[in-house]
């Protein structure tokens, strides 16, 4: 059964050093309050998987020294520029990169979701990505005639961590339109979800909400309330990203000292309820 936790730290207990942690793209419900809780705890050696891209969250975790391996199709701050700590860590050779492409990450999660060992994907052949991904295999399509295609191994994260608008007291989580969260949660061994608020009633008994609801008993290990829990990123349909805070980050994170200053200023004062 899903635990409805009183604190972020309690909810995040299963996110342990060295685990494979899947997180959503910057616009889909990023658990930023939980990310700061992990950084405060001093988590390390994460195998971080961006589904399929990340912005502030990955840059913070990399900058704080929490990440050993990063699998992603793109890490940037979007309109606020390149991701400075990611860039510095790559140039210094401090993290192991598994450079990917968006649909490869989606497809590998879909393989895990189905419990099959791999998924084929078109494209890729002729991209230098292939040389950097010894885990990808090129085969001849067994149903075709001299038709090479690339197989991607199933990607099964230990934990999927994301932020959503609502959960009920049974641990069911309403994700709205952000269907990639559903795939992530299906693929992962466990999901930890922070939400804006708890919903009185059972989301699965509401026909309009149920198709966009992740059943807690099957997938969700723990839920914690974190109001404004995606801040300074946005939560679709609820609040927009905070441009001032993101500009602040882009400016401060350009240097290690500025990055530490950002963590001091933003990482400690916004403890969730």
């Amino acid at each position, binding site marked *: 059964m899903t635990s409805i936790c009183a604190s972020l730290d309690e909810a995040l207990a299963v996110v342990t050093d060295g685990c494979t942690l899947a997180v959503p*793209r910057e*616009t*889909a419900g990023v658990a930023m309050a939980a990310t700061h809780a992990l950084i405060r705890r001093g988590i390390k050696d994460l195998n971080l998987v961006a589904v*399929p*891209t990340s912005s502030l969250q990955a840059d913070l975790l990399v900058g704080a020294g929490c990440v050993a391996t990063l699998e*992603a*199709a*793109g*890490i*940037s701050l*979007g*309109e606020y520029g*390149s*991701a400075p700590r*990611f*860039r510095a860590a*790559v*140039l210094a*050779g401090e993290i192991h990169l598994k*450079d*990917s*492409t*968006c*649909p*490869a990450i*989606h*497809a590998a999660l*879909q393989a895990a979701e189905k419990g099959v060992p791999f998924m084929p*994907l*078109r*494209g*890729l*052949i*002729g*991209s*230098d*990505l292939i040389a*950097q991904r010894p885990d990808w295999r090129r085969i001849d399509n067994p149903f075709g005639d*001299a*038709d*090479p*295609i690339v197989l991607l191994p199933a990607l099964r994260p230990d934990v999927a961590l994301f932020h959503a608008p609502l959960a009920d007291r049974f641990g069911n989580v309403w994700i709205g*339109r*952000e*269907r*990639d*969260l*559903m*795939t992530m949660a299906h693929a992962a061994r466990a999901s930890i979800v922070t939400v804006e608020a708890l919903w009185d009633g059972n989301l699965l008994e509401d026909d309009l909400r149920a198709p966009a609801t992740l059943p807690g008993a099957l997938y969700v290990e723990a839920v914690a309330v974190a109001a404004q829990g995606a801040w300074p990123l946005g939560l679709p349909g609820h609040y927009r990203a905070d441009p001032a805070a993101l500009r602040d980050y882009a400016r401060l994170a350009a240097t290690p000292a500025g990055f530490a200053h950002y963590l001091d200023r933003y990482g400690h004062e916004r403890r969730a309820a």
Partner: protein
Amino acid sequence: MNAAPPDEAFRVEELLADVMARLIGDARHVAVGMASPIPAAGALLARQRAQGRLLVSVLQGQSAFTDGGRELFDCAGQGRLDVFFLSGAQIDGQANINLVCIGDYQHPQTRFAGSFGSAHLAFVVPRVILFRHEHTPRTLVERVDFISAPGTSPPGIYRPGGPVALITSRCLFAFDRQRSRFRLESLHPGHALDEVVAQTGFAFDVPDIVPTTIPPSVETLRLLRERVAPEIAEAYPQFSASVFAQR
């Protein structure tokens, strides 16, 4: 913000959006990736001209997708997406694009965000339009340092799509997939052939007579400023404000 310029005057972004809208032509479905305000303006302009018969998916903003970010790639894999825009930190004369790094991959001198969807979309979308505003030997190179997506594929590789054009702040190139080579299609007003040759790191074909890119008409500028600007302001407020003086 200053008031919008008079109709005779136009900004280069407006010219580029107009060129992109023409290249989109009579497509049914166009998608625009993240951080692509000029392609988004071009696609929304094309939709204005198509009187709604064009589906535009702006990933940083409006789309008809209900199955998550992956639906774009699933659509593309099936052939339900006709046109997509890709950029590159480097683009070379064979239309290979690099979104990863400068220098050796293991010991890069510079690192960029990553390949995003390019390694799939460049293969399966019938008409990929390459776009790079900065047109210098730094961005348009003879050979990219890392191939995020190749411009062409050898026979036997599944490749229904690929690049058809490259638009920069100086000119429009057409890409010939058979010959794996760019041809100068038109020079934007105020730009010269010598300049483009000097600022391009790769060799390309030049026709005997090089046309000038048709500037945006008064009607096009009206559509851009009155219809497209407000539509684009939600996803790209800073772009819309600076280019269209839209608040």
